[in-house]
């Protein structure tokens, strides 16, 4: 079995990388895949908290890389999904404790046994980012519809492309549909115009995401949560299923995707 190694990154902090990683990992496991999620945010780990596995940590990623434990010992099985595992980050070390080659070797090893290896990337574009990106073969970019997050996403796309991860896919998190309708928030089209990448999905702003994270149960388990449903749709798209983007964003899917592939935006197109 050769799994897919995907890094989930953003540049800016606090846009929901860790929440996205936990939910996509859970959603992919719910679809019947064998999934391992790796927290690469060494020194600031929190994927374990979001997944509610904090109390079970014995060994971590740095122990595994230093050869102090076996991969099976570092992997923590999820409480709900039998085929979902977490490799937590070390809290007492820093980003320099590992290098991209070591992480790449760990991922290559895991790819043999798992369908998906998801890496939660730290914020910023320094050492921790380079570790995670250097080990990944695909990239998912998380942003919120805010100018600051989008500026950082733009920079990160450039860095991803220069390290060979072409065509990263975009998840727009915390979309406030009410504000978008009133023209107070950037909508999907504005963001695609600027970034020129394929949109994997939109996640609505939802209080249930926060309560779920506080309880340590990813929001995809909550049947009533709109954000959970969005993560399930995104997981299906990652899996290769054709799921249309719902409601106000259903219009220009294919054209956008073509433009995204060509690195052009709508404006360049209409005048070319």
């Amino acid at each position, binding site marked *: 079995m050769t799994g897919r190694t995907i890094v989930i990154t953003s540049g800016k902090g606090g846009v929901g990388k860790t929440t996205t990683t936990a939910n996509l990992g859970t959603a992919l496991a719910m679809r019947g895949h064998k999934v391992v999620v790796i927290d690469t945010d060494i020194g600031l780990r929190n994927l374990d908290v979001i997944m509610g596995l904090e109390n079970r940590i014995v060994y971590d990623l740095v122990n595994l890389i230093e050869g102090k434990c076996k991969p099976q010992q570092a992997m923590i099985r999820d409480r709900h999904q039998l085929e979902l595992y977490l490799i937590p980050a070390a809290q007492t070390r820093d980003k320099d404790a590992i290098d991209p080659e070591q992480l790449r070797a760990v991922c290559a090893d895991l790819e043999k046994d798992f369908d998906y290896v998801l890496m939660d990337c730290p914020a910023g574009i320094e050492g921790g980012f380079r570790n995670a990106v250097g080990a990944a073969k695909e990239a998912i970019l998380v942003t919120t519809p805010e*100018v600051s997050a989008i*500026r*950082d996403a*733009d*920079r990160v*796309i*450039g*860095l991803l*492309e*220069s390290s*060979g991860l*072409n065509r990263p896919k975009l998840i727009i998190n915390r979309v406030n549909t009410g504000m978008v309708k009133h*023209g107070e928030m*950037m909508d999907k089209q*504005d963001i695609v*115009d*600027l970034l*020129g990448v394929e949109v994997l999905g939109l996640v609505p702003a939802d209080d249930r995401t926060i309560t779920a994270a506080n309880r340590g149960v990813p929001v995809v388990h909550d049947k009533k949560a709109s954000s959970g449903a969005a993560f399930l749709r995104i997981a299906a798209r990652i899996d290769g299923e054709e799921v249309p983007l719902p409601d106000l964003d259903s219009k220009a899917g294919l054209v956008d995707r073509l433009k995204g592939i060509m*690195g*052009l*935006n709508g*404006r*360049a197109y*209409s*005048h*070319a």
Partner: protein
Amino acid sequence: MLDYAPVKVSGRGTNAEFIIDDSMPFAETSEALKGYLTEHRGLWSGGEIILTVGTRFFSEEQLSEFKQIIENESGLRVVRFSCVPDTITESLGDHCAQYPNFPQHNAALPSIPTNGTVSGSLAYKSDESPTVPPAGPAAPAFEPEREAASPASKDQAKRGPTKPKQGNHSKGNVQSALLVKSTCRSGEIITHHGDVVVLGDVNPGAEVVAEGDIIVVGCLRGYAHAGSGGYTEATIVALSLGSPRIQIGPHVGVFAHEGPWTRDTETVPVIAYVRGRSIQLAAFEGRFANYGREELYDG
């Protein structure tokens, strides 16, 4: 002896080639080169050589440092720098710049057009004569201190823009155009001794610095500096202009915007040019017939 990594020397008939490892950092490479030459000092008695740099990008200063090292440590004279065209394109990936007349090492020189420009990562130009004969690796003489244009690419650009050349700023002195087939994203810098055409957007935080004109087939939202050598007849054309600041020659134009994000309703192609001492904007309608003949843009 010839396997002295990272610098290799190969002889081809009466010519010698210095091949420098792509993956070594600059400081180590120059040390290794110095070491090699000191060790084999007796080997060289004089002559002309070519330096093959592989796929890496060097700045003008670094190339002339290499030339200095070789010429001081041996009796040789560096007549030409060369690189491998295919690997350059590969290393640039999808957003590769187009180098139509890339100088090939150990191949005949491309015939040089009458305006005296050949583009490329190691672009050079011929002031001497428009009809330089296609010659072997030992000709024509090429002075890196004066001529070697720094590689105009995103990869090089991280080291920052090269200093603009002083002196003659006439249009005929500028290198041929660089075509960038990708969006220029935040943090990326494109510097070129000539015109730049971007097929895509220039996003906020990106910079395009050209000694000639800048054409953006997309939305220009970053910083653009045309005529960076002081050529004030340069223009900036974009399908949509949203930059907070552009520059032509020494003249800076600043635009007032309400905030960092406004929906662009204005999608008219725009040309920016210098009139008097300020930058003017006009809807670009392609009326360029008389431009450059002592007449400003008439749109």
